[in-house]
């Protein structure tokens, strides 16, 4: 396999979080701690020793229970976290959709947000201005484009955020559970776009709790358990392992993240 054909490569990636028990948040507490005792903490590996290769044009789904490390893994791929150890290689431009509307500011207008969001994701002003029309079209904003985003309906808001992230034509799309929000119309629009992405040969890595989506969109699926890849294979294999595990242990919680955290 040559390097050109690999979009995402993780080599022995570990993300360790230091969970400090009542971290001294203020200097007062810090002083108090010097006098009393040492700071107690435990280390926790959200992702431990994961190696993964995603080929160009592949659609890979991540499933696993809450706290299995899916989102952490996505954030490592998106470059939000720098892993404690291990190597991450990304070939191509990457659009992160960790949360819809992460870079949106409520006081700014739709047009201003399109620019600001694009710049935050590392695209140029020129590119964003050339895509503006299509973004407005997808988001069905109409005259609202020059109104502050706080006046938008939540549908408009989500469509705008989704459009900004996808209209920039990234090579790789990293999606965290966002398809769980919005109404049927919105989900349909998003899925349509993901299908178009697949046909265009783009790489998609996504987290979802919808096993249907895994089944119908993914070429491959990974089942994560306690920060490790437990099963890597066809969607059917991963789902089977996932369901098998949930039967034995407690039932799966379906999280519905709020669109604006």
């Amino acid at each position, binding site marked *: 396999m040559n390097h050109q054909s690999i979009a995402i490569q993780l080599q022995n990636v570990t993300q360790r*979080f*230091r969970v400090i028990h009542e971290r001294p*948040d*203020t*200097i*007062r507490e*810090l002083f108090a701690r010097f006098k009393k005792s040492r700071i107690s903490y435990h280390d926790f590996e959200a992702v431990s020793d994961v190696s993964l290769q995603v080929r160009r044009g592949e659609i890979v789904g991540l499933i696993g229970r809450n706290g299995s490390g899916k989102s952490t893994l996505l954030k490592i791929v*998106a*470059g*939000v*976290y*720098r892993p404690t150890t291990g190597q991450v290689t990304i070939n191509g431009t990457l659009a*992160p959709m*960790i*949360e819809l509307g*992460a*870079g949106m*500011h409520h*006081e*700014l207008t739709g047009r*201003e947000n399109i*620019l*600001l969001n694009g*710049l*935050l*994701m*590392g695209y*140029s*002003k020129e590119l964003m201005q050339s895509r503006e029309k299509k973004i407005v079209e997808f988001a069905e904003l109409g005259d609202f484009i020059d109104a502050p985003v706080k006046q938008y309906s939540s549908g408009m808001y989500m469509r705008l955020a989704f459009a900004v992230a996808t209209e920039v034509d990234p090579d790789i799309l990293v999606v965290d559970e966002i398809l769980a929000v919005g109404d049927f119309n919105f989900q349909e629009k998003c899925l349509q776009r993901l299908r178009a992405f697949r046909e265009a040969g783009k790489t998609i890595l996504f987290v979802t709790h919808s096993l249907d989506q895994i089944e119908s969109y993914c070429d491959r699926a990974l089942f994560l358990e306690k920060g490790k890849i437990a099963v890597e294979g066809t969607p059917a294999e991963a789902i089977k392992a996932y369901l098998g595990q949930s039967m034995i242990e407690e039932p799966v919680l379906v999280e519905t993240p709020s669109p604006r*955290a």
Partner: protein
Amino acid sequence: MIELFRDTLRYRELIWALALKELKIRYKRSLLGFLWALLNPMLLCLVLTVVFSKLLGSPHLHFPVFLLSVLLPWTFFSQSLSYAAESIVGNGDLIKKVKVAKLVFPVAAVVSNMINLLLSLIPLLVIVLLIGHPVFLTWLYLPIPIAALAILTLGATFFFAALNVYYRDVSHMLQIILQVWFYLTPIIYSLDDIHIPAKYQLFFKLNPVSYALNGFRYGVYYGHVPPLRSIVASFACAFIALFLGFSLFRRRQHDFVFYV
């Protein structure tokens, strides 16, 4: 240092957009809008003039010019610091969701305040004309102290922005520090006005911000270029601050995401 320069250049569009956003949001829904940025130091100047010139009898002719020439750049310095200290923590939500170069936030805070400073030079010029203070050719010298002050401020903002991520007390403490600093810096007085005991002289000489600020007073009020010694000192302070501030920031920047 090269990294700072390279990244600032690389993200210039983003920094500019963030700086404009900051200004826009700060003055949104206020009737006078951006004018507040200019009115604020003018009103403070009025109060200080009444107290120090009329009541306490400051020996300086055209006191408002004497004062504003330094008060405006000081306002830039203190405002930049206040905003930048919050710049990483305030953008925490963003930092946790998008891969973005962290340095753009403090730099944007400084840029937005720099826009304020440059615009406030216009009302300063108006006041100079109204009072009848001569408009010296040395106004043209101002870019030099502006550059020194901007570099110094940037260094300080990196330092406080990074520190505030770990200890939120920093932004509260900063307000007190700035207030004390204001009085210890020759802004409402000049060093010639006061008798400083020999053992405290060194302390005043070590004030890193005073050299750059002095350049403004020389250019606008006195009408001559400061001694070379003072110019060199202003840039020395500026680059030392930038080096120290940015080193700390750079070392910790990948760590911020876990603490915001």
